[in-house]
């Protein structure tokens, strides 16, 4: 069909429309951070005729979907699109939104174009802010060149306006081949690299030295004696753990053992660090193995000690006793184990799905269930219409059969800082009950870990907490290095510290500006992002990436520091303290800010410990506990810094702790830059690490290791290890289980947000709905780290 040329009315209407686009953001994940940066000072989106991004569909005609489209959230996106004014346009931002990107995973829709028509795609993972501006210009060009709105405007037949592109149907009008389009004629060779279907596994032919072995301290030995003395054969110490004392406990006695460890043991293990399950059915050697293993990690504060309990479970649908009576925080952990692994917990007050939508069939983390979206039925427009989020009335708390207002805050709400849904029951303004619906951001990271080689998983770690960048890598590489016993050179350790602290600053700056924004102050947003961009520039100079550097490697980092890094860091360190003081005067002495945060959202220290709260939120309750000091890693014990604490436990205390943490981070950065050790940037244990390029080009041994490690991946000794690091939001832990293959057998992520957000109903009960926003902001959580 030949387009007729535009008439004067077309030109006029198009001119008006293209210069007054009203974008609405649908921020799903990492991409949204870059989208949000687009309207801050450096990029200033308003120059392009598209003013401040709107959160509501009523005021918008351009939808920008930024991030991963989850099956649980797709119906919401569709609804908001349909609620927008017409004509309307859609920009799809980032690889995930375009095609599923690197998340070819069971809970992810492989492209927004399966449910919405799309005008402009922005490639990248995540795209830079400049590309958002470019996409706007591209859309303006498209409106100018392709649209003929006058006939429709004057109620005549014909004409074109808004998005006209078809909604694609997976497998029919779009390729769903994981290798990309154009491969249809070629059959897929081999099998997926995930047991139990994985055959011709080369790792079996390789040799690896045994896993790391620790020597118990005196206190740990005494603890082991106390446990075996009290519970006899029901508690069996593991012979050679790689990271911490580990015990196998009978299912019948586990509640008693947990209670003993929490209340009577020396030291007292007061925190349930993590609770998860492992499906043992796909082990290479099934002899002597149960069907499932339940894994508890416990933490003692004084002295800092960790401990692991493993509970063997048998049967196709295993049952275990609930630990909710001992730690209230077990509530969500057990629901997750039930949802993803199908382990039932007897005595759990509210055992139902937590991450997956209600209509989901099966338990995705079990071995043998499909991990890829492309192995499952295509997600269609009809699915998005049918599978609505659960009606709030079904889970609302505190109604007591009376007529009360049930309000959904989220999943798409400005103040929820991501896709999370609080179902709030209100008596007037006061919150009398709350249920939290999570899982709108479940990116299946743990399942993906089982199909990536040990190195290949590193790009995924960055996306677990997308505002903390390299800090995520730290926890993962530490866990794997602990298991394999890899020694990291000093220079690499300090480079890691430098990067982590830069990201801590960058994260806290985003938190600072968004929290001020939540409480009604717009200006800090524009200021704080100026310095954050400076940090991003340094990160880009060093790593080449912005949000997701993926720059740590097992045994070190990807490359040495580039020329000019010190100058850039020094410049930043020089100007930042003054800038921070300046921003702080905007808030700290502001009467509105104080009234909205002081005495609001109080959390007691006992509650914080019981609920497994970590990070600045815990320190704001008065406990001086920071993994960088408690379990020093990566040479943090060589740095001079303090742990800021506060005692009130309210929003203002959390604010004070974070702001002081920024100053301490700066101190660490200054020291790291001044005393950067010389030497290698990556370990020379080439069995496990990717060799330095110069070596790889020079000698055959390194070349072979390089080839093996980047293709099929190195063999990891069988065993398991847990390591946690202090990321900006709290303690993020990785529990890796190796079955002696080239990829993890099970990879478990303990996100700080999961435990921190579980306390919100407790913090918020009895507060007003307006203070709820202040509480969200002060907790500083992020969704990919809660739902993973």
């Amino acid at each position, binding site marked *: 069909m030949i387009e007729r040329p535009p008439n004067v009315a077309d030109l006029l209407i198009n001119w008006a429309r293209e210069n007054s686009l009203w974008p609405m953001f649908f921020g799903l994940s990492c991409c949204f951070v870059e989208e949000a940066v687009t309207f801050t000072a450096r990029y200033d989106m308003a120059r392009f005729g598209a003013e401040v991004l709107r959160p509501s569909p009523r005021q918008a005609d351009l939808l920008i979907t930024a991030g991963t489209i989850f099956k649980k959230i797709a119906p919401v996106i569709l609804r908001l699109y349909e609620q927008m004014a017409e004509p309307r346009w859609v920009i799809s931002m980032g690889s995930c939104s375009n095609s599923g990107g690197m998340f070819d995973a069971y809970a992810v829709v492989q492209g927004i174009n399966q449910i919405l028509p799309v005008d402009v795609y922005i490639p990248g993972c995540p795209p830079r802010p400049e590309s958002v501006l470019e996409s706007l210009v591209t859309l303006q060009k498209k409106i100018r060149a392709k649209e003929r709105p006058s006939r429709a405007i004057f109620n005549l037949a014909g004409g074109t306006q808004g998005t006209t592109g078809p909604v694609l149907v997976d497998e029919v009008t779009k390729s769903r081949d994981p290798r990309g389009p154009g491969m249809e004629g070629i059959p897929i060779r081999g099998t997926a690299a995930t047991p139990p279907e994985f055959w011709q596994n080369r790792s079996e032919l390789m040799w690896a030295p045994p896993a790391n072995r620790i020597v118990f301290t005196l206190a740990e030995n005494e603890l082991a004696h106390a446990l075996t003395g009290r519970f006899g054969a029901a508690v069996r110490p593991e012979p050679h753990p790689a990271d911490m004392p580990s015990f196998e406990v009978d299912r019948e006695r586990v509640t008693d053992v947990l209670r003993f460890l929490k209340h009577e043991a020396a030291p007292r293990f007061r925190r349930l660090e993590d609770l998860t399950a492992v499906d043992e059915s796909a082990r290479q050697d099934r002899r002597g193995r149960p069907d499932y293993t339940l894994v508890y990690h416990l933490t003692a504060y004084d002295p800092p000690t960790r401990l692991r309990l493993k509970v063997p479970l048998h049967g196709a649908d295993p049952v275990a006793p609930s630990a909710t009576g001992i730690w209230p925080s077990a509530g969500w952990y057990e629901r997750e184990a039930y949802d993803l692994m199908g382990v039932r917990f007897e005595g759990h007050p509210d055992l139902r799905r937590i991450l997956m939508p209600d209509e989901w069939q099966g338990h995705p983390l079990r071995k043998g269930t499909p991990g890829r979206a492309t192995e499952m039925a295509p997600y269609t427009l009809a699915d998005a219409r049918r599978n609505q989020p659960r009606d709030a*009335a079904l889970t*609302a708390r505190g109604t007591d059969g009376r007529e009360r207002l049930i309000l959904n805050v989220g999943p798409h709400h400005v103040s929820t800082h991501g896709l999370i849904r609080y179902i709030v029951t209100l008596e007037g303004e006061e919150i009398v009950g709350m249920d939290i619906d999570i899982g709108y951001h479940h990116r299946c990271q743990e399942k993906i870990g089982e199909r990536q080689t040990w190195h290949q998983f590193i790009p995924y770690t960055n996306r677990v907490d997308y505002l903390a960048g390299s800090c995520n890598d730290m926890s993962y590489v530490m866990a794997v290095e602990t298991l394999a016993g890899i020694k990291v050179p000093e220079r690499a350790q300090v480079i890691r510290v430098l990067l982590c602290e830069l990201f801590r600053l960058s994260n806290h700056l985003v938190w600072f500006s968004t929290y001020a924004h939540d409480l009604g102050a717009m200006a800090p947003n524009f200021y704080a992002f100026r310095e954050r961009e400076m940090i991003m520039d340094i990160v880009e100079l060093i790593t080449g990436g912005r949000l997701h550097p993926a720059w740590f490697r097992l045994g070190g980092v990807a490359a040495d520091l580039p020329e000019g890094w010190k100058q850039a860091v020094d410049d930043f360190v020089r100007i930042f303290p003054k800038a921070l003081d300046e921003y702080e005067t905007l808030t700290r002495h502001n009467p509105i800010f104080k009234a909205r945060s002081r005495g609001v959202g109080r959390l007691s220290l006992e509650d914080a410990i019981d609920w497994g709260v970590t990070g600045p939120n815990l320190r704001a309750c008065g406990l001086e506990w920071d993994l960088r000091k408690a379990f020093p890693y990566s040479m943090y014990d060589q740095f001079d810094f303090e742990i800021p604490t506060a005692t009130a436990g309210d929003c203002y205390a959390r604010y004070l702790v974070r702001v002081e943490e920024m100053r301490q981070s700066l101190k660490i950065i200054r020291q790291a830059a001044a005393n950067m050790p010389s030497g290698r940037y990556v370990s020379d244990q080439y069995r496990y690490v990717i060799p330095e390029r110069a070596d790889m080009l020079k000698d055959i041994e390194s070349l072979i290791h390089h080839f093996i490690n980047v293709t099929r991946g190195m063999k990891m000794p069988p065993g398991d290890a847990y390591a946690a690091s202090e990321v900006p939001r709290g303690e993020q832990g990785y529990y890796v289980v190796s079955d002696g293959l080239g990829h993890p057998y099970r990879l478990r992520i303990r996100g700080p947000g999961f435990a921190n957000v579980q306390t919100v109903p407790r913090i918020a009960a009895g*507060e007003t709905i307006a203070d709820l926003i202040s509480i969200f902001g002060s907790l500083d959580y992020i969704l990919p780290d809660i739902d993973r």
Partner: protein
Amino acid sequence: MHPLSATPWYSPWESGLFSLAVFTAMVLVFIVAMLAASAWVGQRRPSQEKTRAYESGVIPTGSARLKYPVPFYLVAIFFLLFDIEGAFIFSWAVAFRELGWEGWLQMSFFIVLLLAGLAYVWKKGGLAWGPTRKKA
């Protein structure tokens, strides 16, 4: 001093008033024209989703028309009561000298009565309308 104009100031032919009238008429015509144009040109494509209330992207639960506790309402009523009674005190203050000691005595009694009422309301918790967490 210039002499007064022969024409009355309200004459419609007085230049300032005439231009104002023309301006008003133009504004009205412009407004009507805009409304009419957008009514004619604007497309209406109502759908179930567009008419639905926006509640963070999910289907709202229950009705928004429910018995809604308004604790502030009580405070407002108390304010109104005391405010009106304030009017008596003002009127007494104006006639303070004329009314003499007798008036002073009567008004003192009235004020004491008011204060007693305020204390009663305070004690009963009629003024506490914040969330329970703050009350604790």
